[in-house]
């Protein structure tokens, strides 16, 4: 059996264009809404989607994504639902790269090998595990290789002497944390961001994507020259939160999804 070329690698073959990467939480506020929003994000210009698996103790996340997790957990959404949603998106013909975001404990309980096998089975391309630094990711990387999945490494402004090692080990793309702290919108970005991103680029051959705290078209535009992709999470999740009630109502959900699509389109088009 030959493993097909990973969609993330295919996406970044051409690095002349910047890629827009939105994050949403699976099951916020319902699994059906996530399915509709995912399609809307692609129509709005996203080429890689980051799908968050809800978790009870999301310690790298700010209040916005915590609330999204809570809404999804109240619906009983689990890691299994997230994997199956990926399968459903693929069956509907979605070609964008799909990356799941999960804290390590749900993966550990699901079974590390089984998790990566199912990522491949349902059609995901990668996974971000924010509490699994390179010192601890051996088991996950081994399983990921076996099934042709990328474990996306993160690198932070405080990584300092670790940047080189992380850059050398990175596969898929390297997730650059643009600011200290948890996820969430910020008024301004770090002054030394360009310098940090420059050092990261010099350490690795894989593409880079920047996230954490990026929420406006202006910020997207500002970071674009220093990276291959821009990740926006909390700002989109906030927009979803504004429409939670409509999204839950089958008669109004279509209209709400359209509004989210318009919002994301503004962010995505700031990139080129």
């Amino acid at each position, binding site marked *: 059996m030959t493993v097909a070329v990973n969609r993330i690698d295919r996406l970044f073959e051409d690095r002349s264009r910047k890629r827009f990467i939105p994050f949403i939480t699976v099951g916020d506020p319902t699994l059906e809404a996530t399915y509709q929003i995912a399609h809307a994000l692609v129509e709005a210009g996203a080429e890689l989607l980051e799908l968050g698996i809800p978790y009870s103790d999301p*310690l790298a996340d700010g209040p916005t994504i915590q609330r999204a997790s809570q809404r999804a957990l109240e619906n009983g959404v689990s890691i299994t639902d997230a994997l199956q949603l990926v399968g459903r998106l693929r069956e509907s013909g979605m070609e964008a790269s799909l990356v799941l975001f999960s804290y390590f404990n749900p993966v550990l309980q699901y079974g590390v090998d089984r998790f990566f096998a199912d990522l491949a089975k349902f059609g995901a391309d990668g996974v971000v595990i924010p509490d699994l630094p390179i010192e601890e990711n051996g088991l996950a990387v081994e399983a990921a290789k076996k099934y042709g999945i990328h474990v996306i490494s993160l690198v*932070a402004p405080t990584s300092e002497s670790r940047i080189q090692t992380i850059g050398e080990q990175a596969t898929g793309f390297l997730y650059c944390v643009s600011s200290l702290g948890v996820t969430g919108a910020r008024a301004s970005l770090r002054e030394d961001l360009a310098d940090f991103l420059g050092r990261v680029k010099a350490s690795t051959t894989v593409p880079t994507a920047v996230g954490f705290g990026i929420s406006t078209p202006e910020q997207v535009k500002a970071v674009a020259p220093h990276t291959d992709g821009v990740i926006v999470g909390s700002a989109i999740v906030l927009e979803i939160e504004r429409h939670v009630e409509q999204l839950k109502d089958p008669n109004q959900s279509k209209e709400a999804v359209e509004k989210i699509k318009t919002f994301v389109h503004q962010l995505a088009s700031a990139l080129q």
Partner: protein
Amino acid sequence: MKEATTTTRIVPDEKGRFGVFGGKFVPETLMNALTELEASFAEATQNPAFCQELNHLLSEYAGRPTPLTYAERLTEELGGARIYLKREDLNHTGAHKLNNALGQGLLAKRMGKKSIIAETGAGQHGVASATVAAKLGLSCKVFMGEEDIRRQSLNVFRMKLLGAEVIPAVSGSRTLKDATNEAIRYWVSNVEETFYVIGSVVGPHPYPYIVREFQKIIGEETRAQILQMLGKLPDEVIACVGGGSNAIGMFYPFIQDETVALRGVEAAGQGVNTDKHAATLSLGRPGVIHGSLTYLLQDEHGQVQEAHSISAGLDYPGVGPEHAYLKDNGRVTYTSVTDAEALEAVQILCRTEGIIPALESAHAIAEAVKRAPQMSKDEILVICLSGRGDKDVLTIQDALESEKGGER
């Protein structure tokens, strides 16, 4: 001389693992801070001036060594082993927590940090951190669950009086677990200028190791004191386990003494057959919480479950990774006692010894109430009395009055 065989491996190893447990499961943003902390701790503990300053504070400020008290009337009442109490309740601020807060506070100062943060459940670690901050001239923020702020209003007032800012955690169960999440989130955002003083043997490496090293003075003193008083080691040592810092501090110096039985006591809350308990080692499964792989109360999907105990200091769904290791290798026996048994133990100790124990410590007393009568009169039982009950008197009063109400 007979060689110890049970636990000869050096733990934690260089990756911060106690067997399979422990490690550093944290966001990348914190990794550099943990590496720096490891190096600073290693350097400080080799530095005579640092050790001297810590020892000086422990003796002239904290009040160490704490006594080992023969509990004569409790021994008579229970009719079995001779019972001794290690009096951590007599530390300044009223609990063993100060040993560690002083150590980490000095370390923070040595690393040039001006601010410390801490998380607290019952408030004893918060009070200890606020005290140390005042003593060493550091600013201090304490994260505390909203529910615990309600249960421990006296300690909240003490922290504020000592100059600390108390920040309520309003997510989840609004207890220690959520306070710890908030403290970690704050630390991720302010890691360059802030030192996080973790209050128990939990969290990512090197914290479980550092806290053990600062708390092992409890067991070292106990061991020397009992040898001096009786010329022999105890037969059994009992301590309560939430995160498990007083228990590790007490147990660690006895690990190689094979003849000494060690028992850790968790909170069974309303009972291990209910879903209202905090018996992590008895009923949990290995998982990751707050940066460490350890036993964890969780559902089938790996979502962390809420813990329950009458004692705000014990209702934590995780436990220190070294305890997980000691459970699996069999060196320590872990049991649990209910809220009701702990309340009963409070009254027994008050009546027989004139000591009001903290509700945490009452769990260790309650286990001793069960164990001592099964032991012979020439056997020695030591209980770690981790803290005093001043902070808990309102909770105890409420519980006892509603118990009486229930009988009507």
